[in-house]
């Protein structure tokens, strides 16, 4: 068990993206899936209880070693990079897309009450959203959805982890 935990820890350490459970199983075919699962949970728990600068984040359907929020100021200083700016417009637009996907630009703009072309473009460039298809209506407008990177950036296991939208629907509908 302990050796399996070491292997898993090392695998997570060398990866630069969240590692899925499937990927870990593929790497360790000689091990029982249940054992891997248990070792993984134990590892996550160990990181949680250990007072280190690292923890194991469960994001975007995988596992990733990340630095704790408590050390962020030093990481920023060390990296000498400004954290990526997420404007209010960007997060608002992302929220509409995350909750309503697949969603049209016109629907996003109806909710926000403002033209969202520029914001959509920059979200596409940053790979936080993608075109997921076209709606089968005249003009075949583009449908947007969020990406895996969106889940990674916003620390979400999957979309169901988003808190439920306050129920505004009850009004007159």
């Amino acid at each position, binding site marked *: 068990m302990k050796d399996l935990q070491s292997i898993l820890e090392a695998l997570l*350490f*060398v*990866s*630069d993206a969240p590692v899925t459970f499937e990927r870990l199983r593929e790497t360790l075919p000689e091990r029982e899936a249940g054992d891997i699962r248990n070792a993984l949970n134990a590892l996550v728990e160990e990181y949680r209880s250990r007072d280190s600068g690292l923890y194991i*984040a469960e*994001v975007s359907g995988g596992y*990733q*070693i*990340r*630095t*704790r*929020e408590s050390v*962020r100021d030093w*990481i920023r200083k060390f*990296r000498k*990079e400004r*954290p*990526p700016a*997420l404007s*209010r*417009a960007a*997060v*608002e637009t*992302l*929220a*509409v897309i*995350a*909750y309503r996907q697949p969603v049209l630009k016109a629907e996003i703009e*109806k*909710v*926000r*009450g*403002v*033209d969202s072309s520029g914001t959509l473009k920059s979200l596409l460039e940053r790979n936080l959203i993608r075109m997921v298809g076209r709606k089968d209506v005249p003009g075949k407008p583009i449908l947007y959805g969020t990406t895996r990177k969106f889940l*990674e*950036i*916003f*620390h*979400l296991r999957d979309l169901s982890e*988003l*808190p439920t*939208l*306050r*129920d*505004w629907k009850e*009004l*007159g*509908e």
Partner: protein
Amino acid sequence: MTSYEIRLNVFEGPLDLLLYLIRKNEIDIYDIPMAVITEQYFQYLETMGALNLDIASDYLVMASTLLHIKSRMLLPVQEPAEDGEGEEDPRMELTRQLLEYEAFRKAALAMEQRPILDRDVFARTGPAPEDNGKGRETVLEVTVFQLVEAFRNILVKWEGEDGLELNRDSLSVADRIREIVNRLEEVESLTFDELLEDLRDRAQVICTFLALLELVKMRVVKAFQMEAYQTIRVCLAPGHEGSPIHS
């Protein structure tokens, strides 16, 4: 009403502004006093105008919506029909829109407070961007559009720069094609600028560009760049050594 100015940049749009006005006046969102809100909304637009800020059309659309609702409120209310379904309050659509927007705004706030990657928490990253290019052999082929863009930039450079003299030499595209191929047989590749550097007037620049486009089309030369947005270079396409023009 001076308090608006401070918040000018903070509003994300007309809905955001309306929500602010509603909260500021401690108004019940299900019973919006249209006269008050419309007046304050217009005052805000005036402030924007006074500060020479461009008022986005989205704000104007909302302004007309507010006026429309306000005018409908002045009309006598129709008696509720037998089934009790009276005409809907003209403000209802706006209220719905505001509540919906507010819900998403709260969701956005909640999202922003999560431990965001590269802002609050960090993970291993791939090689730093500056190392990516090193030793990379990838060559990006340039599209005709990029060529045209580069050409436009050169023409702009020529704009206003009076050529020394305009000589109408017998300069044809065919001549330029031969010339470019000849030069490319001597050197491995030329930059776009090098191709055009010793030309003296616009006609020659245009001739040379047309020649280049023709060569690219015939796949005699290849236009490429080592990395996006870098200098465009041209070279002879493989299998096309030697002058292709026999006219």
